[in-house]
């Protein structure tokens, strides 16, 4: 009968809320009923009925009043607890320092990453109508699957705003990344290089840039009007408060002319891509490309929806809009919120597949993990240490300390420690902020607003509580009679838990180390992979106006291998079209081609391999010739392509050659079909020059002289192509660096933890070791006995983490179309590394223990 207890937790809960006067009577009733039900209806039913009874006892007459729980925690006790904690720190300095180091590193990590995450999340959200701002994207089905592209027909915007009532405004934009957007402004006093953007009317209804001068509803109505940014206005006109009506000359490869300033806008902060310096009327673009049919997809379309319209409603309406105009069954439209483009810009087969948000989540989780590892360290060390304080607790309880005050005491220490670590972590963050900013390419800083301080306090507090909860819980539970004897019931219970924690720490550390190795290999691979064209020793620079003389002069420089017009912007998704016709085209499956424009001699400069036919050569005007890549030829199914004529957006072009596939997009994607057209020389906005290796400085000097002789007053601003290429993988490089830091931190913290733990455990076993020694154990045997348990833990950790890291690495690598294979030695290396570190951590302690003189230790037996 005595063995049949009702669940203790239920009774505890009841005792907690019940008025003390009523409690024991009601509890007696409940127990009596429970015994009866146990016999009549069985245990489960009895438990269930008891639960119901207790729940229905939550009534005003029975619940105790709040005043009844007298707080025995006064100011003096508070001081006592803090004093005790401080003494605790001093007594066990090594432990405290280990904990401090671990927690500070964890917190630094978390703070820095939180700053980064906060910045990432607020990008592109600067506009007031952010909720109603969308970009219209196109999904086109082709043989390769569903492509999501930004390019849309320029007719789309006006039609959308006219025909769809849910859309209040729509605009077409040619973004600054396009070649035609680079140009030079000259006023009487200054010459400035700028990036332009072509926007259709109503742009500022969609994007409400604040206007410093001018009326944003009345701008860009004429083709010669222009609005400029505040920064540009400063550059051109200094502090002049009224620049409206001023004119300047703008030269790009496609437009020359006099333009009049009709407005000055202020660029919002935190935009994902650097904004344009000037905005021109879209009509100019339409002049350049008169054929603006429905199948020519080039500009971007942005819309503003009416108030209260959701994305779903929008999408339903526009989905088949394009189909209805072009009859092209394979393309659907959808709208994505403008501010989501940055973080959620990746699409796979037409469906959203994350994007940068995955990195954000990854970094955030990892930094939390690191914090948890250091908290785990603390838990381990303090549970181990608290075994020494059993007598103290026994005395306190015997005198009558309420359980709560013991809990507070045991929480005070970790909370104090956390706050100290927090302060240290904040200082460290300040110190390393510059380096971090350089690493991430941002401009972050810790601004001590009350909100920030509040967040930091919460982090500190919760770390303290998490770290201290378990030891506090266990310690306050001791029974005084047993504690006074210096024992703790169930000491094994503690050891198992600690072991599990250590395993967890090491599993995480091993995972991180493996990921460092894998990421490192993949990033190296990316950097070194042969993309099918030459990146080394190729510089490129913008050119105000290309001409034949410039090209031949540069080519004649002996240190130059090749100079060509234009440059290859890798990775950027430029325009493309499905409006390509050829003989034998299967009209059922339209193929979307990327269209690349190059200048004379660029193919040779960049080193694209021609597998059949020939390149454009040195021809100045090869507008009717086109090169096609292997994938395109395969998809088009043309048997004898050289010499055949195809139509690209109503232009007749003759295929003169086939190029070997090259990666013009990121290595996440397979090579797509691509046609390369050669623009007349005047249209080239830039040049690329391949320099003989070893002769860079001489070559650049000479090139600069030639440049300046053609364009006096201009700066020869060149960049290396492989540097640009690195930029493309900025995220991956960031991951590599951060992964290294994370892994390093995790390992250090885990080893610190192991060190502290082994210190303690070996101390505990000193008597045992001496006895063994006396009985004749050799040093080797002693070492293996002492370290045995740790080795076992590490092995378990390895067994768990290696398959896990294989699985994770495999998943990440396969997101790239082109990647390294996962090889076993990655993990072998990580495992070896960990094992070595482990031995270092515990080795010294172990060896010291074996050298102890047994006579000293066994004296007191």
């Amino acid at each position, binding site marked *: *009968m005595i063995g049949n207890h009702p669940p203790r937790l239920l009774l505890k809960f009841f005792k907690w809320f019940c008025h003390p006067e*009523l409690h*024991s*009577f*009601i*509890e*007696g*009733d*409940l*127990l*009596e*009923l429970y*015994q009866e039900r146990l016999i009549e209806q069985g245990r489960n039913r009895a438990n269930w009925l008891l639960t*119901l*009874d207790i729940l*229905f*006892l*939550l*009534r005003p*007459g*029975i619940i105790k009043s709040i005043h009844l729980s007298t707080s025995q925690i006064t100011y003096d006790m508070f001081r006592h607890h803090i004093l005790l904690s401080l003494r605790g720190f001093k007594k066990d300095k090594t432990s405290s320092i280990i904990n401090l180091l671990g927690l500070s590193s964890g917190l630094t990590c978390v703070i820095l990453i939180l700053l980064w995450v906060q910045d990432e999340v607020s990008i592109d959200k600067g506009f007031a109508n952010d909720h109603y701002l969308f970009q219209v994207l196109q999904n086109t089905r082709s043989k390769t699957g569903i492509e999501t592209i930004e390019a849309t027909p320029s007719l789309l915007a006006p039609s959308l705003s006219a025909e769809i009532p849910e859309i209040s405004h729509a605009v077409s934009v040619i973004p600054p990344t396009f070649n035609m957007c680079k140009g030079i402004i000259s006023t009487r006093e200054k010459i400035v290089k700028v990036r332009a953007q072509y926007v259709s009317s109503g742009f500022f209804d969609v994007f409400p840039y604040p206007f410093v001068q001018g009326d944003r509803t009345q701008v860009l109505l004429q083709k010669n009007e222009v609005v400029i940014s505040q920064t540009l206005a400063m550059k051109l006109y200094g502090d002049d408060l009224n620049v409206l009506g001023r004119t300047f000359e703008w030269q790009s490869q496609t437009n020359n002319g006099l333009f009049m300033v009709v407005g000055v806008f202020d660029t919002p902060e935190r935009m994902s891509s650097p904004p344009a310096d000037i905005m021109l009327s879209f009509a100019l673009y339409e002049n350049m490309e008169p054929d603006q049919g429905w199948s020519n997809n080039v500009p971007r379309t942005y819309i503003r929806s009416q108030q209260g319209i959701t994305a779903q409603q929008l999408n339903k309406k526009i989905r088949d809009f394009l189909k209805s105009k072009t009859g092209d069954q394979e393309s659907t439209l959808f709208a994505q919120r403008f501010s989501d483009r940055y973080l959620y810009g990746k699409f796979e087969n037409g469906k959203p597949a994350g994007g940068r948000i995955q990195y954000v989540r990854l970094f955030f989780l990892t930094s939390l993990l690191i914090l948890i590892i250091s908290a785990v360290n603390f838990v381990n060390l303090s549970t181990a240490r608290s075994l020494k304080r059993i007598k103290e607790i026994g005395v306190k309880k015997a005198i009558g300390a309420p359980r709560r005050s013991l809990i507070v005491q045991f929480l005070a220490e970790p909370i104090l420690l956390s706050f100290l670590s927090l302060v240290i972590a904040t200082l460290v963050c300040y110190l390393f902020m510059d380096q971090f900013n350089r690493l991430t390419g941002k401009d972050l800083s810790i601004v001590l607003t009350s909100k920030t301080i509040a967040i930091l306090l919460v982090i500190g507090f919760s770390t303290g509580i998490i770290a201290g909860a378990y030891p506090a819980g266990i310690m306050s539970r001791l029974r005084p009679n047993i504690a006074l004897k210096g024992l703790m019931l169930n000491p094994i219970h503690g050891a198992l838990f600690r072991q599990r924690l250590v395993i967890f720490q090491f599993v995480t550390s091993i995972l991180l180390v493996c990921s460092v190795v894998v990421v490192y290999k993949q990033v190296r691979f990316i950097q070194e992979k042969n993309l099918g064209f030459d990146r080394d020793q190729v510089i490129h620079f913008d050119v105000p106006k290309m001409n034949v003389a410039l090209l031949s002069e540069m080519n004649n420089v002996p240190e130059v291998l090749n100079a060509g017009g234009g440059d290859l912007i890798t990775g950027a998704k430029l325009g493309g079209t499905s409006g390509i016709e050829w003989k034998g085209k299967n009209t059922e499956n339209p193929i979307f081609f990327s269209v690349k424009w190059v200048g004379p001699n660029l193919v040779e400069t960049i080193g694209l391999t021609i597998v059949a036919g020939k390149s454009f050569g040195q021809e100045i005007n090869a507008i009717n010739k086109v090169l096609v890549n292997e994938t395109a030829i395969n998809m088009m199914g043309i048997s004898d392509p050289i010499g055949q004529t195809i139509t690209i957006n109503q232009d007749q072009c003759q295929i003169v050659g086939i190029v070997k596939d090259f990666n013009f997009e990121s290595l996440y994607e397979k090579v797509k079909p691509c046609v390369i057209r050669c623009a007349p020389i005047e249209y080239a906005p830039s040049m690329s020059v391949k320099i003989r290796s070893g002769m860079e400085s001489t070559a650049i000097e000479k090139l600069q002289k030639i440049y300046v002789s053609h364009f006096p007053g201009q700066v020869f601003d060149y960049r290396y192509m492989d540097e640009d290429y690195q930029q493309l993988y900025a995220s991956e490089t960031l991951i590599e660096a951060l992964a290294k830091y994370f892994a390093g931190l995790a390992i250090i913290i885990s080893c610190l933890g192991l060190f502290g733990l082994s210190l303690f455990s070996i101390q505990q076993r000193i008597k045992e070791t001496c006895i063994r020694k006396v009985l004749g154990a050799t040093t080797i045997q002693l070492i293996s006995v002492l370290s045995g348990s740790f080795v076992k833990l590490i092995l378990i950790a390895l067994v768990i983490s290696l398959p896990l890291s294989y699985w994770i690495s495999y998943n990440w690598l396969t997101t790239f179309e082109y990647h390294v294979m996962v090889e076993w030695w990655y993990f072998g290396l990580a495992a070896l590394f960990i094992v070595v570190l482990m031995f270092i951590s515990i080795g010294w302690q172990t060896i010291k223990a074996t050298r102890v003189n047994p006579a000293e230790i066994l004296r007191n037996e």
Partner: protein
Amino acid sequence: MSERKIKLGEFEEIVMLTVGILHGTGYGVSIKKEIERLTGRRVSVGALQTAISRLEKKGYLRSKVGKGSQVRAGRPKRYYEVTAYGKTVLEQTRDLRNHLWTVMSSLNPNSSLQ
């Protein structure tokens, strides 16, 4: 007879009557069982306890502490009995009901409620 309006809820009345029936031997569990036996309706420990506490506060019941037993893990019991005041209240309530019944039947000599 007091001037105050005495309101006795239906459940409270039943509880008091049962305590009266048990004649001073009633405590939590036994009162609950007796009510369930006599009226056939389920009574929750919480509802019963609240009613009893209220009645005790009003002075209709009084209690004394009794010994605990093993089945209750040593917890003591509280035995309740009806006070004189409580008895008065019960009688008043009964009289009120009876009066209303009488009035109703005198108005409808042929009603099926006879």
